[in-house]
């Protein structure tokens, strides 16, 4: 009996060891499952927030482009916009998927620069689902154009319009959680 007691003090029996292993495995499994769920949930939240933030920045860019433009024009598509020249935009439309804004910059010495900011809705495979493309062109220099793409756009109609005489843009995005709507109204300072 004394012998057996000292053996018990020396360590766990096989049954006890197995019970401990099973318990620890269960606890670790549950903790890992919870951690994976939390990380997956956070990823969904993060993706939704990131997409909405990107489009909020785009909305801000469209607002500032219209607001500070010296001239702007709405076209049906990029094909219609291609016929415009440096001096004149040509004929536009009241509502369309292409917005072009021009800014004249004059440096202190007198040498100026013409910068064009274009926003185009490019439809994807599904109807009225696509990408908004922002392009900044430096028309009077050889500087390379800057192009940014914003995906996940849902357009219920033409993206840009002059409804009620106010330049505006409307689109939605489908995030991993919900739908977010974006409405931009901007009266150019030159039109005040």
């Amino acid at each position, binding site marked *: 009996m004394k012998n057996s007691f000292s053996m018990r003090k020396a360590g766990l029996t096989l049954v006890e060891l197995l019970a401990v292993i099973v318990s620890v495995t269960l606890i670790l499994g549950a903790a890992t499952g*919870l951690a994976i769920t*939390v990380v997956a*949930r*956070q990823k969904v*939240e993060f993706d*939704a*927030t990131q997409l*909405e933030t990107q489009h*909020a920045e785009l*909305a801000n860019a469209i*607002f500032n482009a219209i607001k500070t433009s010296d001239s702007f024009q709405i076209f049906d598509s990029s094909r219609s916009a291609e016929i415009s020249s440096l001096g004149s935009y040509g004929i536009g439309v009241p509502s369309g998927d292409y917005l072009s804004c021009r800014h004249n910059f004059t440096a202190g010495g007198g040498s100026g620069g013409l910068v064009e900011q274009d926003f185009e809705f490019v439809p994807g495979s*599904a109807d009225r*689902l696509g990408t908004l493309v922002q392009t900044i062109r430096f028309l009077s220099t050889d500087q390379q154009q800057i192009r940014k793409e914003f995906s996940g756009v*849902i357009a219920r109609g033409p993206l840009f319009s002059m*409804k*009620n*005489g*106010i330049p*505006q843009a*409307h689109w939605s995005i*489908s995030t991993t*959680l*919900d*739908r*977010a*709507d*974006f*409405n*931009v*109204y*901007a*009266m150019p300072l030159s039109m*005040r």
Partner: protein
Amino acid sequence: MPSTNSGGFSLTEVMVSVAVLSVATLGITSAWKLADDKSLAARLDARATRILAEYSELQNFAPAYLFGQASSSSRIDFETQGLPLSPGETRTGFMYHPRHVDPTGTKGGTATFDDAIPYQLTLVMDGQVQLITLTYQLPYLSDPKATVVKQVRLNLWQ
């Protein structure tokens, strides 16, 4: 007596350990819920700021003939979209459009969204100052803490 004790845990010990585990689990779950709630509150706050910015621009720069045109409809829809508010006018809309989940638990297609978290937008005139107020309720709190009021004050140019 010592041999009885070495045979296993007492009921009190088991109950205490279960209680400690329960408190820890509740703590983790409520922290997770709190993170979700705060994230939603931040998203709603950003959207409210955007809506107020839209209406600030409209109130300041919309052509004069547009004022008063939307009084027939209080909903923010295609008809009232882009129309400035008239003094005392209230419009309603929804801040949040979660993906639609049908009763069987499956999520709908990309174009199916529900309307949740209604908001009210009102305009009050105070002399030359326009006060646009946006009000909505946070879904996870009870009144009065749930009510969020955001305002923008516009000094009209002459």
